[in-house]
């Protein structure tokens, strides 16, 4: 408590200290490696201990269950890397699933319904993004508001009724598996999107801008990053991916209801943070995020197979989330003790 630093560790210093270490150590001791190792341990333990875990049927249901999480986490990760947050994703999933239901009820056909849902998702993202960037409001406050607003529109549109009739070809497609592997066909779409997001976030100037904004908005702006446009684009992507998850939700569960996916935002954020994205912004990587989602999915499925109820899963999710951030700050504390003399010299100069 005697230090003069704020709660938020100095991000610039953190980033440079990272690059002071050899590459192999940076990769080996990263958060992402830790979470992937944990995932492997859990998978191996489940394969050995849980009967019927390592079967194509289980794999299929496991992946189908976490598909909405996977889609949204791809977009939530960059949003959180810039230091923003989007709490409205669960409500957007509910709203777009209702939109798909209404379009299907009106006989418009699923392709049209998908397009309308994506437009709604993009619009929702634009509303979030403009309130954050143009009006200058904190993302947390804005998306708590739109969480209630989008959910309210979803519930208002359908009331207590539900649409449960969808084109058989499309519901079969969403449930279809690739051959005997048990892997859902939808995963092909996910892998394509994952590739696109990885390229965008880790291999383009736009992606470097995302990290730069998370480290320091002012510095990013001075080095030529269009801060407002980047943040707006990320909110729109978040809306689009939520809409995709909403379409999936309606078709996979054969049900468009206003209260679909309630509370999904918390699971997404838990998975993203577990996967090594810093809540302060500025750090994170998609392989960690995907591992974070898979870890939650594998734990839930393995425990479900040994008849542990869902409440234990939520206790474990909560405790894992708390431990993962605490672990991060303990490591940071230990490192800061080791390098303090150098950093103190830099700070006083």
């Amino acid at each position: 408590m005697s230090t003069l630093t704020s709660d938020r560790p100095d991000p610039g210093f953190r980033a440079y200290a990272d690059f002071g270490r050899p590459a192999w150590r940076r990769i080996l001791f990263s958060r992402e490696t830790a979470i992937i190792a944990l995932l492997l341990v859990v998978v191996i333990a489940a394969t050995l201990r849980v009967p019927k875990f390592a079967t194509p049927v289980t794999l299929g249901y496991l992946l189908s269950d976490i598909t909405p999480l996977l889609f949204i986490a791809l977009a939530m990760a960059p949003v959180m890397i810039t230091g923003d947050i989007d709490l409205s994703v669960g409500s957007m999933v509910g709203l777009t699933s209702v939109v798909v239901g209404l379009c299907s009820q009106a006989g418009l056909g699923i392709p049209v319904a998908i397009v309308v849902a994506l437009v709604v998702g993009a619009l929702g993202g634009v509303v979030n993004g403009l309130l954050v960037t143009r009006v200058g409001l904190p993302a947390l406050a804005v998306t708590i508001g739109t969480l209630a607003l989008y959910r309210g529109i979803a519930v208002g549109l359908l009331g207590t009724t539900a649409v449960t009739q969808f084109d058989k070809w499309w519901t079969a497609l969403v449930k279809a598996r690739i051959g005997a592997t048990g892997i859902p066909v939808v995963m092909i779409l996910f892998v394509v999107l994952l590739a696109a997001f990885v390229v965008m976030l880790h291999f383009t100037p736009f992606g470097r801008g995302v990290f730069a904004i998370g480290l320091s908005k002012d510095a990013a702006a001075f080095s030529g990053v269009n801060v407002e446009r980047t943040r707006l684009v990320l909110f729109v992507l978040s809306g689009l991916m939520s809409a995709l998850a909403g379409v999936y939700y309606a078709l996979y569960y054969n049900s468009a209801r206003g209260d679909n996916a309630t509370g999904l935002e918390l699971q997404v954020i838990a998975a993203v943070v577990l996967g090594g994205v810093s809540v302060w912004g500025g750090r994170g990587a998609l392989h960690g995020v995907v591992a974070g989602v898979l870890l939650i999915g594998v734990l839930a499925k393995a425990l479900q197979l040994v008849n542990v109820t869902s409440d234990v899963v939520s206790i474990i999710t909560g405790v894992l989330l708390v431990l993962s951030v605490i672990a991060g700050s303990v490591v940071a504390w230990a490192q800061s003790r080791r390098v303090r003399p150098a950093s103190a010299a830099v700070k006083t100069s």
Partner: protein
Amino acid sequence: MSTAPVTPLAGEAARPGIGARLAGLARSRETGIFLALALVVIVTTVKNPDFLFSGDGWRNLLLNPSIVAVVAIGQAVVIISRNVDLSVGSIVGLTAYLVGSTFVAVPGFPVPLIFVVGIVFGGLLGAINGSLVAFGKVPAMVITLGTLYAFRGINVAWTGSNRINASDMPDSFLNLGTQQILSIPVLTILAVAILVVVAWYMNNTRGGREFYAIGSDPDAAELYGLAKTRRVLIAFVASGAASGLAGVLFAARYGTINSQVGDGFELQAIGAAVIGGVAIVGGSGTVLGAVFGAYLLLTINSALPVLGIPDFWQRAVVGALILGAIVLDRVLALRQSKRLHQERSAV
């Protein structure tokens, strides 16, 4: 120290005259929210006089929001210190079930003591949040998101599909939920008493002002020598204790407790605080505003069906209200900073 953008606080040096004070009162956020609340009640009562003038209408109007209002008081203290507590709903649920099971296990458990049990238990859960946030130096949002899951999970594991009914609890306890003194519900009186104490503490004591100082600039507060860790810990304990009390109130008011009690309270409490003028970035706002916010939110909820709007649209209205409130805050803050700039350049 902090200066609230919406409700300027009277400094020690220059006490404003009575006229300036009245003008400040007229401009304050609390007055605005109160007028909005009055407007909702009047419009709805004109449509259906029973909304206010029937015995039940009057009672429900005061009674139903008081539980969320208590949670919002604690939440406001946490937000003012630039944190957030997402676990309040789970604390309400867990405490409510603890209250019910205590009465099941010990049928003659003294009623005043159950309040102590609820408040202390809630405070302990809050202390878990507070120590993780304050000592771990990690963002409150993530920690309380984690404990939201963990507390609710413990609640579901403990309760299962079990349910505690009114018949399991003593009448003297349940009567508290509906009793009125001078036609004002007892629970509302309790909520107001807590509001008065916390509002006085936050406004007039050194400790209270430190929450504002830490919330408006944590670094500066620490440089100044304020015990930040302790203040943050206290804020979370206060929020936990308030949620624990709300759990007791819930048990007394509704008499039926399952594993989902308090689900979604975190959003109502944060929404109430934000609508009431507590800035989500900390450092400004009052607990009185948060309580008015809670009353406005829940009164609109019960007014909508009377006004002929299907209650399915309640949440949409709540969302629009929260967005409207934060945009308004922003506009007012910008206008004030512009005015301050002009005043400075004029001198």
